């Protein structure tokens, strides 16, 4: 029996068991491979998506548990102003090395700035500590988030 999930504004019927994690439904049932597999136990953040705007580890979220909530993924990140600003900041600061974790980093950073438009350096560190970057591009990720926070956060806080 298909499981119905709303993803990036579209209703999708997924023909898979209800206990299948969203990550594997996205990647291999729907062909949306932007969301990455890193650890499978919610410890690295590579698979981060938004569920009703909250940063969520899709490797630990069964599709049957999503219900009416709205999922959004890296493929739709550029359609949001904060997401787009972060994507641009990532490119401007040449943040990445291998880039594999960056979809998750961007999704988590977007959720952070959506809930806290002007975070302190410490708040950035704490919000991002669940996302491992094996190449350790942390300094550039910090800088990119802070640069958007100054622009976007400054604007929305006025």
């Amino acid at each position, binding site marked *: 029996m298909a499981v119905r999930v709303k993803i990036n504004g579209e209703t999708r019927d997924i023909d898979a*068991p209800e206990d299948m994690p969203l990550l594997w439904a996205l990647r291999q049932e729907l062909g949306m491979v*932007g969301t990455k597999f890193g650890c*499978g136990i919610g410890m690295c953040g590579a698979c981060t998506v938004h569920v009703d705007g909250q940063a969520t580890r899709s490797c630990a979220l069964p599709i049957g548990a999503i219900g009416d909530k709205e999922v959004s993924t890296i493929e739709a990140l550029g359609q949001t102003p904060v997401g787009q600003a972060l994507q641009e900041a990532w490119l401007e600061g040449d943040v990445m*090395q*291998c*880039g594999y974790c960056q979809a998750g980093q961007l999704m988590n950073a977007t959720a952070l700035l959506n809930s806290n438009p002007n975070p302190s350096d410490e708040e950035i560190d*704490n919000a991002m500590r669940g996302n491992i970057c094996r190449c350790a591009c*942390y300094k550039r990720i910090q800088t990119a988030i802070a640069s958007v926070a100054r622009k976007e956060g400054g604007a929305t806080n006025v």
Partner: protein
Amino acid sequence: MSDTATANRGPALGRRAFLKVSAIAGGGLAIAATMPMAAKAMAQGGPAELNAFITIHPDNTITIIGKNPEIGQGIKTMLPMLIAEELDADWDTISIQQGDTDAAKYGPQLAGGSFATPMNWFPMRQTGAAARQMLLQAAALRWGVDVASLSTEPSVVVHEASGRRATYGELASEAATVAVPDPASVVLKDAGDFRIIGTPIGGIDSPKIVRGEPIFGVDTQLEGMVYAAFERSPVFGAKLISADTEAAKAQPGVIDAFTIEGNGNPTELVDGVAVIASNWWLANKARSSLNVQWDNGEWTGHSSAKYDEDARRFMAAGSPQENITVKGDVDAAFASAESVVEAEYSYPFLAHVAMEPMNCTALMHEDGSIELWAPSQTPQGGQGAVAQYLGLTPDKVTVHITRMGGGFGRRLNNDYMVQVAAIAKQMPGTPVQLIWSREDDVRSDFYRPAGWHKLRAGLDADGKLVALDDHFVTWDINGGQFNPAAMSATEFPANYVENLRYAQTKMPTAVPMGALRAPTSNALAFVFQSFLDEVASSQGKDLPTLLLEIVEGVEAEPDTQGFMGPQPGFKPARLRAVTNKVLDMANWGQPVAGGHALGFGYYWSHQGYFAEVVEVSLSDRNQVQVHNVWAAGDVGSHIINPYGALNQVEGSIIDGIGQALQLAVEIEGGAVKQSNFHNYQLPRMPMTPKLHVEWVKSDHSPTGLGEPALPPVIPALTNALHALTGKRVRSLPIDTSLFA
């Protein structure tokens, strides 16, 4: 730019001078030579391929091949920069394509050893310059003028005297018909004319990555593709007795399950069971129903605790199995030494844990040929290994190189390629993607070798280092020219100590070992730079002072030909330059904040010289806090892409700090105890120190940055902790109970 009679040329490499390097089955590297230079014009009005790397299209856009595998080191951007510079191309109209595995066409395709920069600095530039010369020749013929009267602007040939101009696109099809120049004869730019080299350029694939577009190996999607999980024994060296494949086949979504017999070589194929399903999660889940029986043989008695006990017993016994190098009269020198410093150092096994778990996609065609989409650092080696396993000639094995979510040396081995080939062989016509779980990755790695060193230093009445003795306890590893558990006879400061003995004892093990970023150096820098810090302290001086004394008056060593191309000898002036630079950057010798201390480390590896200073403190709970790291690096005359270069150094520093603070793989019952990121804890954002990196430019060809910045940060950190607490860290990872 314009050509002049006095212009630069690269070394006379000749037509057969491209070093072709490929990993060969069973480990090791083979070298051959090739010079891919031939031009062909496509159909009338179509693109023109001026050589294997450069295609110029009629609309004046240019496609450049990035030949080497991209693991995050930035090579797919950097090698084309070298070509584009000498082609004098407009970077904004260039697109870069990943080259497939093709040794004959592209020469060596390898991501490892920080070799790409030194190996390609001249050949890639000559490749670009040769194509530019062909474009100039074509314009000269078209306009009936002398080539010497022509110059180029980005992607345009200009005849200044007449004001005539033609784009590369307009000239390309004619250029493809002129004689291909000898690469050694082509004129290279003066460094002062560089427009691309030295300019920060963002990663060429980064726009796709921030949009989540498919680009990594595991993103490969083929029509009708199925997914495979591979169950193998957690105990190294085990043999498969039986598995209940029928039970696995009864699980939801499972298409097939079958046993696979290994070939006895863990770098290729170990015994295991493949489970195939419509979704990898279903395949992986079905592994638990296999009820696999293993013959673990003699290896279950092996553990890290036993290895440590054995190694310490060997060191205490004091009679190494064999000498690595001996000179002078070591025993007499110690007998007459004014003082002796003695210490034991050790470091653990480490895993690579690239973010993208091991994976590979394969399609066995009905005609018996096979096609693979491989995230491999040595795709040519993987091609050979798959061909050998399947009994095919390499031309029947097509290997597409995909971007990789990190390598760090793990993907120098191609076991996942042979595994997926063994699986695909069972299902011709159906594409299959093999994916490893993180647990598979952590527990089936080729580990950075653990090691133990008993060191003694003898000093004369003037405090001069006159004798040095190291008993290194390491491993018996079969095969391969490259042994990551070996120590060089010239390990610094070997060449500058009169009486020297480096000796070793090798222990048997089934733990597979391999190269981890800055292999050997990532461990030996800690051992030797920490021990030298002890030696310096015993004389009331600091480590940089001791290092500068050791190399005082020392001559530069000559360059040699290494197994991977030119191998520069040690240049003491470069040690001095980076050391003095970093001391200056860090205000070494000046007071630091209360409760803080500085430590210094230096290392020369992978042709790069780095000196680093770490500022450290301890929290109330004795947790190590790194506040600042200053690094001065000399990798030659140019930093080709400052963006990528700096990123490598910053990442290496944090990587090294993570290793020092919290990483160890432990063996228990012949298997790895750790399994995922909860018990193999990589550095996370909050531990990021302030990073200060500066370059020391020297008159040497540029060399790579994937590795050399990592080794010195570890001893710089442990030496800082000694300065802070008076306690010596002699074993990694750092045990903070030492500071209680």
